[in-house]
């Protein structure tokens, strides 16, 4: 058994762990939740508050010719309209600074925001949003990542549609395939998934003294949002405080800045608190989704069931902006070979811009897609050598001391124990075919 040495934790942690592990504990906020006292983003209010509403693109790809808020501003009760021109630094993103707070020259997906209106009531804000005149010149759009990779495809951004390319090599995959007695090749596809947290995105911004700002938001990463808001609004970080409310579900969908800079800027402009809540339609159309993947698996195996080589190609539909796409793809590539001993591995990942909804973080971060593919594929490879899928997995599964294609050496691997226990619980009989 391998023992990891690390400094002894302070006694208080020891004590807490002892008191908690193996015991039922209720959530610290359960009492507030069951009595309706927990305050979520949608519940936040402040006196004199305005409501905000976004103006969104009906086109998947178009040039913005002109935005005219005059008519909207003439509606009684409308306090302010902001567009890209009002954003001091209109770029952000974790790995790629490609995202706009509000669309400037072009819109790149249906639902991309081009302006935001603040008004005395939600009703007026909603009406006024329809009165912001936006003139578009539609451009050819691309919705399929394979098409987007072809020469001559509509360009979602300057610099080509391949936003990122990753590869992992281990051993010599060509040699591996030449040593294989059977080769199995398959393609798998996974769809878009919307997080569909029950609470929509919601935030309330309150202007403070000396140009400071407090934003209450239903968000999973308040500190990331605070630094992004400070950056795009060109404010010192010390002037922006983001407070996470109770979050009515996130699943990765509230892992980044969305409406916070809009309500923040509107609050600074009007000197009044500004609230915004997305509708369910906006959630589906304009917030991030799980990336659809196309995965091509090719595996070489010997007749006795020993895996010798695997190549994987992953094409991730990034949507219009990178967001968490590159980091999600990196994680998918790291996991793509599956929990099996394979001496020769080659993994290639492509992140491709399209005019689809933006892919972001979602539970598992790229791993559910590849997990689905490599486990289906493992069944096929087992069938090709005439072994039952469990025997095949037990034979090839990772153990302590195994090295992953990335070079990581594993410790405390429980794959075999987990499989055995699952077999017992499921009443699986050796030799049965699923």
């Amino acid at each position: 058994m391998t023992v990891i040495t690390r400094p002894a934790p302070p006694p208080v942690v020891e004590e807490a762990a002892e008191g908690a592990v193996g015991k039922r504990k209720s959530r610290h906020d359960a009492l507030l939740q069951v009595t309706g006292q927990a305050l979520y983003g949608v519940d936040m209010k402040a006196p004199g508050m305005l409501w905000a509403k976004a103006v969104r693109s009906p086109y998947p790809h178009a040039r913005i010719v002109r935005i005219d808020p005059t008519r909207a501003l003439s509606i009684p009760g409308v306090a302010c309209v902001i567009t890209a021109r009002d954003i001091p630094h209109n770029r952000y993103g974790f790995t790629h600074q490609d995202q706009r707070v509000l669309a400037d020259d072009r819109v790149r997906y249906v639902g991309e925001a081009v302006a935001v209106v603040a008004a005395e009531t939600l009703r007026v804000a909603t009406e006024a949003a329809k009165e912001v005149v936006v003139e578009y010149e539609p451009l050819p759009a691309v919705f399929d990542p394979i098409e987007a990779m072809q020469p001559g495809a509509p360009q979602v951004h300057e610099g080509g549609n391949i936003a990122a390319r990753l590869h992992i090599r281990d051993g010599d995959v060509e040699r591996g395939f030449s040593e294989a007695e059977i080769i199995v090749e398959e393609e798998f596809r996974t769809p878009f998934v919307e997080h569909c947290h029950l609470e929509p995105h919601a935030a309330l911004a309150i202007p403070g003294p000396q140009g400071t700002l407090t934003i209450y938001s239903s968000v999973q990463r308040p500190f990331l949002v605070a630094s992004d808001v400070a950056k795009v609004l060109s404010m010192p970080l010390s002037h922006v405080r983001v407070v996470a409310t109770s979050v009515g579900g996130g699943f990765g969908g509230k892992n980044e800045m969305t409406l916070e800079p809009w309500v923040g800027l509107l609050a600074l402009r009007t000197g009044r608190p500004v609230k915004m809540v997305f509708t369910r339609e906006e959630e589906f159309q304009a917030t991030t989704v799980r990336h659809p993947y196309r995965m091509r698996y090719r595996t070489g195996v010997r007749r006795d069931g020993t895996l010798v080589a695997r190549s994987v190609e992953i094409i991730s539909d990034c949507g219009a902006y990178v967001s968490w796409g590159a980091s999600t793809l990196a994680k998918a590539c790291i996991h793509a070979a599956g929990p099996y001993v394979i001496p020769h591995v080659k993994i290639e990942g492509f992140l491709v811009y399209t005019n689809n909804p933006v892919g972001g973080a979602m539970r598992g971060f790229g791993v559910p897609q590849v997990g689905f593919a490599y486990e289906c594929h493992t069944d096929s490879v087992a069938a090709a050598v005439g072994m039952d899928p469990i025997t095949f997995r037990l034979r090839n599964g990772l153990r302590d001391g195994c090295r992953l294609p990335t070079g990581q050496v594993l410790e405390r691997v429980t794959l075999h124990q987990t499989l055995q226990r699952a077999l017992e619980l499921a009443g699986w009989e050796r030799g049965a075919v699923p």
Partner: protein
Amino acid sequence: MTFHLRFWLNGQEVRTEVEPDETLLWVLRERLNMTGTKVGCEAGDCGACTVLLDGRPVTSCLLLAPKAHGRHVVTIEGLGSPAKLHPLQQAFITYGALQCGFCGPGMLLSAAALLTQNPHPTEREVREAIAGNLCRCTGYQKIVQAILAVSRGEVP
């Protein structure tokens, strides 16, 4: 044109002026500041806005406020308080029937309506009673267990 709405909210008489096309959900949350009733879709799909109207669960996002005129409305604030929890509220805590908790108020009211009508439901009846309440976090299992535990008198 405003409508003079009068109804009983958690046993107390309430009078307020509303627009005739306002929903009960809006009136509760925005006019009366009772934010325990949640909003998830405003289309009758999620059940987060469930309240009891004369004892029956309704999605308050689909109910025009004037329809509640003269009637009894119970929201989560009226089911129990932190000092005096309804057995269902206690059971939801004990069984871990909540994660984000956003579905909780609606779920609890649907469950309360069921147990009033049918104190000893089968598991299937419990599942049917909460079919209109979506929970994206828990997978429902613990919610069903919590409701059944209350029906068996296993929660103080």
